[in-house]
């Protein structure tokens, strides 16, 4: 589904990603872990098409298409979804109104008919249950005055509505208490299917208790320095990142 080869990206003159290689197949869940400043969020942002970063080398092929050639909205329409670490507050735009616009733009891109108000509402009601989000929250300005947990649930709600092929969760666990974490994780798990893939970017292992990955990758100084099965996450939790850093430095 997704093939990242030698991806290099920088912001200004600062190199952040220094050659990422990653293969994600349909149905898989990959966790990307690593200490602060290792480039995890940059990787998520570059995949979603944030324009602050310059991709200096490498390629990203998504379902046979060159992802890096596409605008953020095209990537979304192709089936990529980024759950933001810091969801943006947008005064005056309700979640409902914005999601309806987004869904119909994506449908237009795919040559599908627009959803009418009734169909949209029905779908919304169904997905709201997934993340236990209240309708009154959705008719308010997008994320404005939402608690940290409400913002993250809103991200997962949007993901449930848009049904992406590849979901990228950027530090979705940050700022969540254990109950909110469980709700968010359940939402993600219900969307798991053989056709879809998920990349979970996280600093801590605790989210992975709920969203169990097939593979764990450790990102350090802009490179994936170690990959392994889900047990690698436990090891990291137990021993921290220092042993990885030491391993890298000796090589």
């Amino acid at each position, binding site marked *: 589904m997704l093939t990242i080869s030698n991806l290099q990206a920088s912001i200004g003159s600062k190199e952040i990603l220094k050659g990422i290689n990653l293969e994600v197949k349909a149905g898989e869940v990959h966790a990307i872990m690593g200490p602060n400043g290792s480039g995890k969020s940059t990787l998520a942002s570059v995949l979603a098409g944030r324009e602050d970063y310059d991709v200096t080398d490498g390629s990203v092929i998504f379902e046979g298409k060159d992802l890096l050639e596409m*605008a953020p*909205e095209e990537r979304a329409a192709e089936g990529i979804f980024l759950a933001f670490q810091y969801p943006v507050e947008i005064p005056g735009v309700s979640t409902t109104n914005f999601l309806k616009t987004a869904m119909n733009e994506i449908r237009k891109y795919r040559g599908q008919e627009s959803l009418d108000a009734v169909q949209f509402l029905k779908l919304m009601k169904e997905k709201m249950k997934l993340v236990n989000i209240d309708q009154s929250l959705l008719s308010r300005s997008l994320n404005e005055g939402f608690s940290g947990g409400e913002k993250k649930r809103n991200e997962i709600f949007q993901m449930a509505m848009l049904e992406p092929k590849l979901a990228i969760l950027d530090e979705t666990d940050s700022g969540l208490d254990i109950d909110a974490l469980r709700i968010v994780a359940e939402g993600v798990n219900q969307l798991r299917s053989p056709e879809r893939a998920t990349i979970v970017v996280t600093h801590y292992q605790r989210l992975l208790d709920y969203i169990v990955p097939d593979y764990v990758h450790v990102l350090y100084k802009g490179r994936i320095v170690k990959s392994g099965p889900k047990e690698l996450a436990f090891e990291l939790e137990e021993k921290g990142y220092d042993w990885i850093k030491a391993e890298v430095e000796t090589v």
Partner: protein
Amino acid sequence: MTPNQPNNDLKSKLLADFRTSEERMNGASKSALHQIRREALNQFDRLGFPTVKHEEWKYTNVNSLVKEVFEFNASSEITLEDLALLESSRLDGNVLYFVNGRYQPQLSKIVSPTSQLSITTLADAVKTMPDLLNQYFAKYADYQDNAFTALNTAFAHEGVVIKVPANTVVEAPTILRFVSDARQVNVASQPRNLFIVDKNAEVKVAESFRTLGDQASFTNVVTEIVMAEDARMEYYKIQNESDMAYHIGTTQVYQQDRSHFYSATVTLDGGFIRNNLNIALDGSNCEAHMYGLYFPNGRQHIDNHTLVDHRKPNSHSNELYKGILEDRATGVFNGKIFVRQDAQKTNAYQSCKNVVLSNDATMNTKPQLEIFADDVKCSHGTTTGKLDEEALFYLRSRGIPKVEAQSLLMFAFAEDVIKKIKIDPLREQIERRIQAKLAR
């Protein structure tokens, strides 16, 4: 005035016009009203058109206006079909049309019974209600220091006098539609309005300014609003003029105890615009709400000057102006608040927020607070910035194309002010026009 003044031509033409019309007046030139006109003309003669050296006109240069040649009160063969081109909203209420400054009874309709609302053209009021005019006319809008108000006062012949009797709630809105028919020649008009809202009366009035055709137009309008104790008023000024339009307008509001004034000034289009909104809170426990929205593009220039004068204790004023500027547009916001020594327990808030979409667009903001009382709550804030890039990326990452995402954000920004318009068909029409302008 020396002959090499840049504004000499238009000015001397206006002075000459005044003399000519005065000669035709015969006996009427001795009326009290005309004495005011003459005094105002002398003031205009003395003041001349302002230059950018004048503090109040620093960012708004009227030089190109005074160089134009206009036909004042030009005749127009306007028809209902022509008006249809303007696609104005249908309002259930009193609709009065003025074309190039002249009242058009055949296009207008007055539905409110006279027991509720007296609507008279200024031309008629001069004949039928001289006492009322003597009491109110030109008693509020300053023609001593403001050249354009002086000019308007000197030439005050057409416009509307509205009087709402005490304890009357007028449900039907009244809309005054001022159309510049600039299809043939450059045209100019100077409407003069007077609204008197008596004790505990309530009324809604909108003034709309439109242009037909591509020639230049100049509108110099003055509206005086007098609100007695417990009076309530909604006042809207909607401008949708051409790029060749010059508009200088002053709305002067005078409020007595417990009166409640609520206004929105929306400028969708217009080449060169200066709006003055001056409110004198000469009573206690008054409220004044001022909302504004301006959306210049191309080389349009839109200047909003507001002045709130708190003269008595316990009143509240609240102001929110928002602007979106594109291309090479320029905008000005100047908000003055006076709190006089007697005006203890005043609450005065002012906010001006702008989004500048292009590097070539300019916004000048200047809040001015002058507070002479010690027990007051006042605040002001202005922001000018670009569209929020983070918000834009967020919307795009959900599949909304860039242009649509920008429109969505700008509309949300504008909506804050649009939703303050309480006359539904008017608000809906403005929403459609803004959507259309955003989609361009």
